[in-house]
């Protein structure tokens, strides 16, 4: 019974632990901006706590580095279930600009399973709040994969009236895009 209540109340009071595993602190500042009066995520019940044992959500920034990979895994294991992980910023989502550098293991999801991605460099505080709202189910996500195929191969059409010249040199006058 308590677990059912916890599931129902989960969306209304998320306690957040902030873990930066080697980023440039740009996303840190944007996350802390989201806690200031201007953007105020506390009205959704989100509180910043100091220990991963108290938290429900881990906000990961920065790519997983060789030196901090183990610490990140231990912080994730210290969180009690049910738990979520948000990867904030391009570094945490995909490794950032330096995803194949010598000191970077890769994106955060190589070490811990990630639930929601919020890309950006750094993401605006509104983008972070939107990502949290998508996680809570308040809004729909706005991205979907896009594929464009040129279905028919365009064949160039030459009109004999547009060809000039004689002999070997033939010039096509109307150079429209094909």
């Amino acid at each position, binding site marked *: 019974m*308590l677990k059912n209540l916890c599931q129902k109340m989960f969306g209304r*009071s998320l306690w957040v632990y902030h873990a930066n595993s080697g980023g440039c602190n740009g996303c840190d500042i944007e996350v802390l901006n989201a806690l200031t009066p201007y953007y*105020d995520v506390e009205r959704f019940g989100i509180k910043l706590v*100091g220990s991963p044992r*108290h938290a429900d959500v881990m906000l990961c920034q920065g790519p997983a580095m060789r030196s901090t990979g183990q610490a990140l895994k231990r912080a994730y294991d210290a969180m009690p279930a049910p738990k979520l992980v948000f990867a904030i910023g391009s570094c945490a989502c995909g490794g950032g600009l330096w995803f194949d550098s010598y000191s970077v293991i890769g994106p955060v999801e190589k070490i811990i399973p990630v639930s929601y991605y919020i890309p950006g460099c750094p993401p605006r505080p509104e983008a972070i709040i939107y990502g949290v709202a998508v996680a809570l189910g308040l809004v729909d996500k706005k991205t979907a994969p896009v594929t464009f195929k040129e279905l028919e191969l365009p064949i160039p059409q030459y009109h004999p009236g547009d060809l000039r010249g004689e002999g070997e040199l033939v010039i096509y006058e109307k150079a429209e895009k094909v």
Partner: protein
Amino acid sequence: MKAVIWMIVGGLANVGLVLLVAPLAQGVLRKVTARIQSRQGPPLLQPYFDLLKLLGKEDIESGESPGMQRFAAYLSLAAILAVACLVPMGFSAPMNGAGDVILLIYLLTLCGICTLLAGLAAGSTYSLVGISREMMSMIVLEPLFAIALVVGALHAQSFRLNEVLSGSVYAVAGTPYSGLIMLVVMVLSFQAFVQRVPFDISEAETELMEGPLVEYSGPKLALFKYAHMAKLIIYSALFVTLFVPWGSGLFLPLAWLLFWAKVFVLVLLVTVVAATHARYRIDQAIRFFAGLVGVSFVALILASYGH
């Protein structure tokens, strides 16, 4: 027989009321703090959601001795609710015959001991530093409250709860100097008793990763947070009955409502002070309280001479 029934019913009513109202007081505190900081703030019922969510989370056994951790969590909430049975909240104290002021002092000290047990059971560096600070502040804080109660007992010439906790500090012929001195001392140190800024040095702070509570998760954390919220209500009730007793002689529903109105005003004052101050360092706080202990000894001497 009637006394026993009154004890049980009154005790349950007191405990139930404290359990219901404590998260609401915390919600009011958070909302008013947010408004002072010019932002919207969480909804008023937010601490209820927090506690319900924490109760359903997974219980991770961590720290050095998990059995002692669980015991400390249960003991903290149990101690503060036992104090609730001893406090007259608008009507006379339920357990009036079963305890007196000395028991009250010891039960309040027990709430601090629970934090000590919690920190020792966790065994991490942060919690050990947190409990050392908590013990230092307890050493200088508990005498203040004990002296306030003893001054009241000296004036009322008894240790019974109903007689001491009804404004007895003012019960002298002439100007109650000791009562007024103790009023000022208690007002200045009230924030430390309820463990809010500027004096919440041991718990719930970002400097020590929440100090003694760092290894707690899920239901045990819910009990500690509940005890923290209940402390605000219990200490406000004690302050109101000891120092602001006017109006408790009226007939019962009005006295009860007046009591809760006074407690609400006190919670608002705590909020305003908590929202506008920064946290003191431990040595600044100890110096402050040591000065207050000296002043309260003066009040004790005056009280023993009948002033």
